[in-house]
């Protein structure tokens, strides 16, 4: 109870700070203000850090129950903020969605909309102390226990990371440690989470993993250094590391962005192949709608730290409802269609420090209506699986309600 009050206090504090800035309506920040902000930030982050660094955290604080046992992860109103010297950046601002067992959930959105931060929050890898998950719950289902990642201490996270959930990063070129051999880097994660596995077994498993991800010369690659491999090969190694302990969830953070198109297809094939082999869920973060269409069962569309639309892949692709999603769909090149210019959504993402108090997309929206000037729109249910945060569907919802 007390924690909750403290957290509410923190959020109130941030809001106060935010309102002060709002009144000024300016982006310019003096050294004096900046020093003041960083002092306040330190106060806030120190409270959170101290709480997190306690030597003993009682299990009751981070054990929870899943709302639906069929989900591997449930994000529930997650807020991850960055306390910078020019103000608080609400990178993830009230995100709620879930990843069911054995399914692929695609998270789409443009750069800087909070996709990666959402996934890093789940791994508790957000750059601390500036970055903090200040509110909400991330429930992770490890089978027998459900953890609330937000409150989980480092020891629990170390047990989960790489073991129950693993991550494939965007930059294969720099994601492997340049001074260790490939074999050693894969072995490491196996040793770490399988105490008692013999050296020989670990090596065999590593080589079979390398084969699994399509590295032909697996015995040779085992002894190579990362710089001797191409980007695609390195990404395969990263996937092998992610798969090593048969995790329940694989987070793929733009796994193909840095690769050329032919390799992209291969990597995606490997991912979907493996998903069926070890039956894990994938949280696929990308801004490539083509990838999403091919891979995802569910789609979450994010914009400026919030979810604007979510539903099954069919929902999103057959009936994109939020103007942002519609814009995204329109700005995708279509094979065989001859157009002068590719459509682009006008305007820019609002300043992350000074978010408006109405719909974040309103200023760029071509379909805005009077209601859009009101508070940020609530989530409206279009169908059993399809949700959208847009005032344009307010009446439909009522209709839907009436029909029921």
């Amino acid at each position: 109870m007390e924690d909750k009050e403290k957290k509410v206090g923190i959020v109130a504090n941030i809001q106060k700070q935010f309102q002060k800035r709002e009144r000024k309506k300016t982006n310019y920040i003096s050294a004096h203000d900046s020093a003041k902000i960083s002092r306040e930030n330190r106060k806030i982050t120190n409270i959170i850090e101290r709480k997190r660094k306690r030597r003993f955290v009682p299990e009751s604080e981070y054990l929870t129950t899943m709302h639906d046992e069929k989900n591997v992860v449930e994000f529930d109103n997650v807020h991850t903020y960055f306390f910078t010297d020019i103000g608080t950046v609400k990178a993830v601002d009230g995100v709620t969605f879930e990843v069911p067992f054995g399914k692929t959930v695609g998270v789409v959105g443009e750069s800087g909309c909070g996709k990666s931060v959402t996934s890093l929050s789940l791994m508790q890898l957000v750059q601390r102390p500036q970055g903090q998950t200040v509110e909400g719950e991330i429930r992770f289902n490890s089978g027998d226990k459900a953890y609330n990642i937000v409150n989980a201490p480092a020891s629990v996270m170390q047990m989960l990371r790489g073991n129950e959930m693993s991550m494939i990063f965007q930059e294969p070129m720099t994601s492997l440690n340049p001074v260790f051999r490939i074999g050693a880097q894969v072995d490491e994660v196996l040793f770490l989470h399988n105490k008692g596995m013999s050296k020989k077994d670990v090596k065999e498993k590593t080589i079979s993993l390398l084969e699994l991800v399509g590295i032909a010369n697996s015995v040779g690659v085992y002894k190579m250094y990362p710089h001797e491999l191409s980007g695609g090969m390195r990404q395969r190694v990263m996937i092998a590391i992610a798969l090593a302990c048969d995790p329940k969830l694989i987070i793929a953070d733009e796994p193909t962005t840095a690769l050329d198109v032919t390799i992209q297809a291969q990597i995606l094939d490997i991912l979907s192949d493996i998903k069926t082999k070890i039956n894990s869920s994938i949280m696929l973060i990308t801004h490539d709608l083509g990838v999403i269409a091919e891979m995802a069962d569910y789609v979450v569309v994010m914009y400026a730290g919030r979810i604007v639309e979510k539903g099954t892949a069919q929902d999103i692709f057959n009936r994109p409802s939020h103007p942002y999603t519609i814009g995204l769909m329109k700005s995708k090149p279509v094979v065989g269609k001859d157009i002068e210019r590719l459509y682009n959504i006008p305007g820019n993402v609002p300043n992350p420090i000074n978010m408006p108090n109405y719909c974040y997309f309103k200023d760029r929206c071509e379909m805005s209506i009077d209601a859009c000037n009101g508070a940020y729109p609530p989530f409206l249910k279009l169908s059993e699986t399809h949700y959208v945060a847009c005032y344009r569907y307010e009446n439909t919802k009522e209709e839907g309600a009436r029909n029921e």
Partner: protein
Amino acid sequence: MLKFIIKRLLLCSVILFFVMLIIYTIMHSLPTSYVESVARELATKPGSQKSAAQWMVELNAQYGMDKGIIDGYIYWLGQAIQGNFGDSWYYSIPVVDEFKKVIWNSFYLGVAAFVLEIFIAIPLGVVAAKKQYSITDYSVTVVSLIGISLPTFFVATVMKLIFSVKLGWFDISGMIGRDYLSLSAFQQFFDVAKHFIMPIITLTVVSIGGMMRYTRTNMLEVLNSDYIRTARAKGLSERKVINHHAFRNTLIPIVTIIGGSLPGLFAGALITETLFAIEGIGYASYHAMIAGDIPFTMFYLSFMAILTLLGTLISDVLYAVVDPRVRIN
């Protein structure tokens, strides 16, 4: 690798030839001349038959100073290659003998300061990087900045004031106490060691700052890299991430620097040795230099040049040892 080293050694010898030529030229152009001062001294001696100028001509021939720079250099080089560096004018014994007498004092001083520097600076740098912008980080930064900024003679003087004059713990300078000869061998060792304490601390204080900053900067760079995030994502403990993954990468530039400064341990610390009257190579060459002792100074400076070249060679080789990316197959 062997081919690379041989190539580098050949290149080094070419560099060395020209470096020593420059040194020889400079030595001949020094404002102070040993020959001249000896000539004046001899001319003013009672019963001297010759004038200073006459003595000069005679002595120049005697000391081999009448050959001119190029001829003189070639003659000196020819002798030096055979291992004959001549007699020191100031110490009036063979240069090599004087060198053998003093070099180990310098070496012990250098090693002690070097080891202290490494064991203090690197851990502090790592801690500062790990807790960036914390109080620990700021205090480490301030201390290292003080260390970088203070000159040796200032630190030495302040230490002398505090520990010798006020507290009287150590002798103000020199290598041995006044009752040295009456002590047993074991006590003699401790007597010398005690006299080495202040110079070692001075050298450490002065050198620690740079190394600390260097470690901190490199560690920070490594900690922000993607592979550290990967290591964390594997579920490794923070200690393992820092000590294994991050430190191994931080080590690349540090080992290179340390390896490069290994030959420097023999170079002596001219200012510190002189201030504390430690009879090392720096102290000896300081006195030789102000007396215009060309053979000894030539020897010392060539020795320094060789050490520097050796240092760069060692750091290049070490680079390949610690960083698989630069290994030549």
